[in-house]
């Protein structure tokens, strides 16, 4: 570990632009929370602590002090306390399973002095730090199975505990920490498999078996083509598959008077073609062809097991929940109602919105949970596309600045941590705004820095200012 002789904070090294963007987003968030609480009649002062905007103002004050403290603490302590803090957080998460208060089905909250705190928010910090410490240590090799497995374990452990709290939304966010692993050079195929699994899971329910199979074949062949070229071979291969499918499909009808589905026909032909693919790989000494064959086989096994689990293991209400999550079965009274009202609020904003405090959907409470998960509805309705675009742009700018800051870091610890933070911001923003505009399933996570709620605001502020501190320290040397 490098040592430094000057640990005092150098104000000039702080990325003030990012801090300004951060502050702007926090203030805009508060302004919109005020609008949600405002009902057109008399409201108390800005610091009316009975209201949400009053409480949020207090939290903002706490964040300012916390930020100052973080900037003053020597950054070596983040290294030193990374592991103990990680374990402490895991212990706290487990304790919440037994001691926490249940809100909306998730046992994810503890109350301290009447104030609810969501430990899963703060565990993001410790997990990011622990991951940075482990992956950033000397001797970590992204090619060594044991090291990579440990890195994954650091991420998966809190996910498992949080899933046990039945707070799936918060758990998903931890997947953002895979991004720094990718950046550090962990084998890309692992991520291909993870993304493939997620996509297969979604498309499993959206596409017919035949379409899904055809899609998988097409993706594998295209991937191999991108890697190795030789496109004529690919075309011949695809033509042969098509021809074979047609021959089996109609041949069975004509000569055996039996109906074989298109899906079964294509599956049979594709499986039969695998030896040919292997022979091709062997002859041309193209070892990566095996990977695409493997990806295909993996997809088949994965989809079959989802099918099996969905049909035989899950109970009907769990099945419904999944279908609803994927937007396959509408439910205008429940979750579907929220999404619909959210789209209406945002969509009715037009170019420039209805004006501050003038949003009718906001004022008359048509969107549930509007100051927390659906805070973006207020932006969309009252500030229109122009306002939404500005907020979106600020988030994008902040994330890109953080990524560039990460790329500038020479110390792996800093780079990994800041990339992890940027990825968590990104995932939160994409899922939250995507949810409000109906692109994403309804997953209850916050819009960072914007949504009402002390835990989320404070956790993201701490995450952010640690990154700022780390970024400033680098130039300090």
């Amino acid at each position, binding site marked *: 570990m490098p040592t430094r002789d000057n640990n005092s904070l150098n104000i000039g090294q702080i990325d003030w632009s990012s801090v300004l963007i951060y502050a702007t987003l926090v203030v805009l968030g508060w302004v919109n929370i005020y609008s949600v609480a405002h009902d057109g009649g008399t409201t108390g002062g800005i610091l009316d602590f009975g209201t949400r905007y009053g409480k949020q103002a207090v939290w903002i004050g706490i964040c300012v002090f916390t930020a100052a403290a973080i900037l003053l603490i020597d950054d070596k302590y983040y290294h030193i306390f990374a592991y103990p803090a990680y374990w402490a957080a895991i212990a706290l998460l487990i304790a919440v399973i037994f001691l926490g208060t249940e809100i909306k089905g998730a046992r994810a909250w503890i109350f301290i002095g009447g104030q609810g705190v969501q430990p899963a928010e703060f565990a993001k910090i410790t997990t990011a730090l622990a991951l940075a410490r482990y992956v950033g240590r000397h001797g970590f090799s992204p090619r060594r199975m044991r090291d990579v497995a440990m890195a994954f374990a650091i991420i998966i452990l809190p996910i498992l505990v949080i899933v046990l709290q039945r707070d799936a939304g918060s758990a998903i966010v931890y997947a953002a920490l895979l991004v720094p692993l990718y*950046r550090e*050079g962990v084998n890309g195929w692992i991520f291909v498999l993870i993304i493939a699994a997620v996509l297969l899971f979604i498309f499993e329910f959206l596409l017919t078996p035949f379409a899904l199979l055809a899609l998988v074949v097409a993706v594998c062949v295209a991937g191999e083509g991108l890697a190795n070229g030789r496109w004529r071979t690919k075309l011949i291969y695809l033509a042969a598959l098509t021809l074979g499918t047609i021959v089996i499909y109609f041949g069975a009808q004509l000569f055996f008077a039996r109906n074989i589905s298109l899906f079964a026909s294509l599956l049979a032909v594709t499986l039969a073609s695998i030896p040919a693919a292997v022979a091709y790989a062997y002859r041309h000494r193209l070892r990566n062809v095996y990977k695409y064959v493997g990806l295909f086989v993996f997809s088949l096994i994965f989809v079959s097991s989802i099918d099996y689990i969905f049909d035989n293991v899950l109970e009907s209400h769990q099945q419904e929940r999944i279908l609803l999550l994927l937007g396959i079965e509408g439910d205008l009274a429940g979750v579907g109602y929220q999404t619909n009202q959210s789209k209406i609020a945002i*969509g*009715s904003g037009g170019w420039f919105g209805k004006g501050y405090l003038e949003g009718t959907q906001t004022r*008359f*409470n048509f969107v549930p949970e509007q100051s927390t998960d659906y805070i973006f509805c207020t932006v969309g309705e009252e500030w229109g596309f122009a306002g*939404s675009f500005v907020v*979106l742009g600020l988030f994008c700018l902040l994330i890109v600045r953080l*990524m560039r800051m990460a790329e500038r870091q020479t110390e792996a610890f800093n780079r990994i941590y800041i*990339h992890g933070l940027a990825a968590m911001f990104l995932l939160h923003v994409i899922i939250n705004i995507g949810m409000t505009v109906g692109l994403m399933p309804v997953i209850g996570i916050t819009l960072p820095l914007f949504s009402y709620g002390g835990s989320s605001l404070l956790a993201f502020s701490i995450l952010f200012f640690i990154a700022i501190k780390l970024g400033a320290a680098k130039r300090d040397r």
Partner: protein
Amino acid sequence: MLSRASILYILVAVAFMVLAVRLFYIQVVDPQYERSANNNVLRHEVLYPARGEVYDRNGEFLVQNREVYDLMVTPRDVKPFDTLMMCSIIGVTKEQLVTAMDRARRFSTRRASVAFEMLPKEAKLKIEERGFPGFHTVYRTIRSYPRNVGGNLLGYVGKVRPIDMERDEFYRATDYIGLSGVERAYERVLRGEKGVRISLVDVHGIVQGSYADGAFDTLPVPGTAITTTIDLRLQLLAEELLAGKVGSVVAIEPATGEILVMASSPTYDPNDMVGREIGRNFVRLRDNPRAPLLNRAVQSHYPPGSTFKMVNALIALEEGVLTPTRRYECHGSYTVGRSNVRCRPHYSPVDLNYAIQTSCNTYFCIVFRNILDNRRYANVKEGFATWAAHVGSFGFGRRLGSDFLDERAGNLPSVAGYDREYRGQWNSMTVLTLAIGQDKMEASPLQLANFTAILANRGFYHIPHIVRRIHDRDSIDARFYERHYPTIDPRHYEPVIEGMWRMVNESGGTAYSYRLPGLDMCGKTGTAENPRGKDHSTFVCFAPRHSPQIAVSVYIEHGGFGSALAMPIASLLVEQYLTGKVEREWMVDMVKNTPIPYPVYDNRRQ
């Protein structure tokens, strides 16, 4: 190969692009969300205008508006209250009150809905005085008929039907619309313009204030009043005389085509078709075998009988096959081959005046055959077509185009029709009874009145109409100002009218006793043969003979001889209209005390 950092930058850019494009789409491109947002928060409350009033020609009210109050209830705000007192104020049973409350609760506990409709003002005042929390009243107006007259004429107002909403976007599901008579014909004038009050409601449907400070609210514009051509006192007299009988009376001012009277019997109390009992009353009226909801003046058509003889006389004069002085012999019947049309005993031979005066069937059979078998035409069909064209020019066999939308055309036989019926094998003998207004000839009482007006005018008519003035306009529909000329030269009318004058004033017998001394009434009785029962009694007349003021047609189903009932009714109406009073009380009593049995209608009940 791209560096992994670059791939990450690209992913970020793509993700934000997708969000931005999606936002642009739902906020700027797709208008459905703005509509849905307005549906969410804007409640359009319709403010109903009062319908236009309807007056008679002398400015007396025929239709007024009455204020009523709907009792609204918001179940959530209701506190325990004295249900017995509430029931007695509204005039309902406790069960009805409970049912109404349950219905309101099912609709919504937070939003107000109608508990009881159309309460009188006294009830509203009492409810406000006692102060029942959770209840309030809403003002609106309904129709009221102070003189209880002209049910079918004025028509009624009812809830709009789906077809009305399809035809005219003005209407919404809860609106009312004129469904018959004047209310229907002048719906667009009478209905006014609805106002709207736009309120903001929250997610619970509770009003939170006005939208844009009422900038888009509009006040209702009351409907325009109408002065009809009806003479209220004449109408009242007509309905009084028709009571208990089935038939109708139409009187027209010949010079203008204004309808002075249009009475159809049996009629109904128009107040029955308003208010809370409308449903029950409607069913009762609809199921009455005498069909009181049928406006017989325009919707029924009958054989005109002998009143049609003047039509044939005019056509014969115009076609040159008859002169007023030409005499024909009558020996009690007209017989050719197996055909036989009987006549009454009278002097013979007869000329035109005398033929009309005595209603000689023989004379008109000969005249009619002369028209059809006129050697100017190649064959009987051509002659018949000429005859039918003349008849049609008087307004028979087609809708006159009056302002009654349910007017019927009656029936004017055609060559094609008889060709079908007789497979082309027919001649003037086959259709002989058209000479005396029988066979396939059918006319509505309105058409007969219009024909009488043509006689009074000596050769023209205005389309009969019911509206005299629409209060915010300078004129009524242009078609009513137009003169229509039948295909008969005006000089042919006088001999016919002379016959009608003699019929009333020189005949002797019962007809003579119904004449109007000094008023020069010209008329013609008709006794239309009716295969289903006793003959119909009909009479048409106008008076005075010179510069006529009124033309009347009376048609009494199963009334027997034209002189028996139809003539005294017409005579009394003319007296009332020309002198302003009825002095012949004995005639009124005679008409009212002549009962007519209607087995055709009343035995159908079983």
